[in-house]
């Protein structure tokens, strides 16, 4: 029947949504983390320029969450 065909979802579509959520939500979370660390790093750099290297490293640490998200997304695929 026509109605049944419409309600059945393609499993590959659901997979794609899952993968998208994994990367997307992980991206938002790391963005929130990086926001505070980034502002703190800029603040420290304003006073002490030599903090640039350390600040940069600290700022990208939450980036690992996105990598986990990406790995999960690839696994789902």
């Amino acid at each position, binding site marked *: 029947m026509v109605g049944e065909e419409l309600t059945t979802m393609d499993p590959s579509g659901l997979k794609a949504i899952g993968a998208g959520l994994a990367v997307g939500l992980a991206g938002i979370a790391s963005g929130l983390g990086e926001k505070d660390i980034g502002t703190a*790093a800029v603040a420290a750099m304003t006073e002490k320029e030599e903090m640039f290297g350390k600040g940069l490293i600290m700022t990208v640490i939450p980036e690992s969450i996105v990598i986990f998200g990406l790995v999960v997304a690839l696994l789902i695929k």
Partner: protein
Amino acid sequence: MVSPVQSRGSSNYAYSVARVRAMKSKLLPKETYARLVNMKIDEIIRFIEESEYKQDVDELARTYDGIDLIEHALNKNLASTFTKIINFTNGELNYILTEYLKDYDIWNIKAILRGKYYGAPVDEIKESLVAAGQLSYGKLSALAEKDSEDDVIEALQNTQYYIILKEYEKGQLWKIENLLDHMYYSSLFQTLGSTKISDRRHFMKFIRTEIDIKNITLLMRLKKYGTIDAEKSADLMIAGGLELGLAEIEKLLPLSFEELLQSLEKYSYWNAIADIADPNIDSLTDLETQLTKYSLRTAGSFSHEYPLSIAPIMDYILNKKNEIRNLRIIVRGKASNLSEELIKNQLVI
């Protein structure tokens, strides 16, 4: 109008605390003071000229020289540092710090009035101005150039201090000064006191410790050298201390110096002065230094306890004030040919 108990918006803790901590790391290390005390006055001046104060010294070098230059540069640096903090903080943090730094407006008004009362030269009055509050340096120096106390008071008509200042009677300067101090603390309690906002509670703890230390210092001075009567002394005490409320202070007022020291044993401040508290002590400098050290130590541990709050900023403000005070003591002490030992005793390191 925003009610006093309402929060003034979100604060940028991450930015402010990180910046203030970086600023704190640039304060002079403890060892420097020992070196400075051993230097000659010219070397000290050169040292300050090449340190964090370089910019301020350079800007003022055309107008002043020698010790006056250093004095002005230190004040200018203090004012610009605190103004900088006010400028980079937001919301609640900014509101609390602005209220706190009104202390400098009162300090400046008192300095100008005192200067006018005793007929001090305008330059000397300007030397003690620290424009870290709401009143700008331009406005303050214009006030310092006025002819008499009445002219100064007249020019302050649009400020919140006028209610008290207009009561000024010639020769009764101490009354006005005392009332201004009381007004400062009572307005802090009024605007920031009874509230559940955590930053305000942390801040009030600092203020109430400050009040306790001021009251204890004053009590000790009154008892050691005091000549004024108990009623007048009671007027000088500030209400709202953390451990010593007005009721406790009233009990301490009639005591002698020896009894006062004994009564202080039950308060936490005693730990700071226990080793040197002796009824026959010659000078109170050591006791006062220890109490200031205690307040700095408390601020330090408090800032570790609450890392993302107003505590690290207050810690920095107190330490910065102390650094300027120490440098001024060294420069002034050396200029007046005081012995190294005497200067060292005055420093809070």
